[in-house]
């Protein structure tokens, strides 16, 4: 399974991943100039807060959000291993928000669904890694990532 690796030495905290995630994934228009003006504003799935380090869902193997979800809205894709929200069934109870150890699941009050990174599972390549100007974000095999084979 491939996950996003964040190189904290390379991350400058420029927020480009947030900006383009918000535009390409979270907005209706998928065009920066228009996305900026959308109300409610698009919610990016990646966070750069406080320190220069881009944080997004780690797709934990023992994912607490999967256990906490009362009605099976939070699911794991059996093929890719990616954890995602099945939006039509979300009841906005925010249990997943509460249990996520990284705090990367965002309650979207306007849409009444939990919002989290699905590592762009329906796209060829995650947008945050694609736009990262320093190459701080990259897609690597989790087993390599564990053994630090990079």
């Amino acid at each position, binding site marked *: 399974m491939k996950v996003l690796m964040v190189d904290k030495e390379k991350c400058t905290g420029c927020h480009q991943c947030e900006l383009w995630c918000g535009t390409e994934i979270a907005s209706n228009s998928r065009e920066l100039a228009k996305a900026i003006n959308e109300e409610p504003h698009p919610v990016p799935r990646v966070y750069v807060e406080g320190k220069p380090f881009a944080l997004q869902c780690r797709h934990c193997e023992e994912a607490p959000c999967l256990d906490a979800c009362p009605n099976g809205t939070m699911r794991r894709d059996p093929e890719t291993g990616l954890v995602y929200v099945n939006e039509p069934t979300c009841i906005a109870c925010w249990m997943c928000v509460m249990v996520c150890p990284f705090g990367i699941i965002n309650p979207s009050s306007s849409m009444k669904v939990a919002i989290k990174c699905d590592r762009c599972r329906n796209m060829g390549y995650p947008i945050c890694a694609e*736009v990262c100007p320093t190459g701080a974000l990259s897609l690597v095999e989790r087993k390599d990532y564990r053994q630090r084979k990079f």
Partner: protein
Amino acid sequence: MEFIQKKTADNAAEQFLPKAADKGIKLAWDRFEGQLPECGFCESGLSCRDCLQGPCISHPFRDANKMGVCGKDKDTLAVQTLLKLVLKGTMASLDQVSDFVEGITSGEMKPKNVAEAKKAIASIEALLANGAPALKKAFPKALIAAWEEAGICPQGVAKDLFKASQKVEGGIASAEETLFWAFKAALLGAFAQKLQGGLKKAAFGVAPAEVEVNMGVLNGKGATILLYGRFSPVLKAKIAAAAAKKKVTVAGVCTDPVLAPYTFAPVTSYGSQELPLMTGAVDLIVTGDQFVNPSVAAIAAEYKVAVVATETLKGEKLDAFAKSIVDRAEEAFKFRRSVVRDIPEAKETALMGFSAADLDVKKIADAVTKGKIKGIAILAGTNNVKFTQDLPFVTLAQEFLKDGILCISEGDASVSLAKYGLLNPKQREKHSNKAVADLLKAAGKNLPAVIDLGYSENGGVMEFLLALEAASKKALRQLPILACFAEANRSAEVAEAMTLVAMGVSTYFWPCLPVTGSPKTMELLSKLCNEKFGAKLIVHTDKKMEPLAKAKMILNVFNRVPDPSATDHPWTDWKK
């Protein structure tokens, strides 16, 4: 986030792209791709580096950093980004005019008409000191009244530029007020250009001249000097005079090609300015600051081309400087005999440097007011790597001319168009429809399909617009005139676009200005400008629009086709 597949429409330029890749030479297009994706905050005008507490951004999707440390919100950031561009553009105009004045007052050159030159210099000094109130007489009263109501009539460099520049330092100026400061700064630059045009006329005289355009003008047989960018016309004339004595060829890139009695054949347009060096037929380049890519120095070194910068900290007497440049070019030519010449055959004739006085403006005004032609399009700007070089200009001009719209162009846009024969009087009928061709035949001597009004530093377009307004007895806002900056690039062009809007000419501007992060600023540029000046600055956010689609969109406006989907169409009075 845009990757351009076809880099240039100019075949002469295109043939150098694989050669550069083979040699490992990086050109502007390669560097652009290296920059992708460009910073989205900067692109939208939502970033700020004005103080050392930052850099700050206004994050469109996060509440925690909607404002900079000092409290600038997205509207302030975007409108100030525009103001900064305009300030820089106006400085460019003022720098040029001050160089020119210095050249004349140094006594190293005797102006053709001494009395007129003295008058022009006095006006320029007045403009710097108090905004040259006398200059206002050249403008229609209604226009001046609109400017005065908005508070944007220039009052001198100290009052306008220094104050305007402080709007980015702090204070609680609203977006509207900041925008008006930008207009004020832009007008100051435009006035300087108008006066520089007057000084050029007095010092050298003006007349259209036939020049050859594109890289085929290089011959490689004798020493060749290329003048890069804008610098003092006095120095240019001195170099040309010294070169003529020794039969050294002098051509130009991004520099005014017409300077009586000399001409400087435009070797290429802005986007491909690095390529003439790769022909091997250039021995020495003289570089100004404006419009010159720093990359030319490295490519010049690669091809053993000598480089002379005009502006150094130590001033030199112009005659001696010009002579030393020509001597160095000759030496370089001898030294460079082993360098392989690779000169494309592309060459086109163009008639450039018209002024309002060379045209029968009354006939043009009649044709517009009586509906013989559908309108007038002003094509301006340089090249931008975000678009296929020259393609937007050429597509717009061709489509406009076919549909009965008179095209005028200026500066580097003219060079781009000239490369494709649009400025060649012999090809007039080929490019334009009957109505335009008839008008061109009647309105001047030997007019080409697109009329070049000289480089922007001479204010030719403003001169023409004022003449048109006087001849038609109608305000510019009531005439079907649109300006298109099809591939804009430099801050001077932003200032110029603002001036055109202030004069009542709606202006399309590509690529989109860094104001898209602020819906309020976008609205001010269309709604407020329309209220105050009867014209809009139209910033299109669609990056993928093809040149042909742009041409069709603008033609819809000329043809009075309502387009409800486009909220920013210039619904000026003449549309009714």
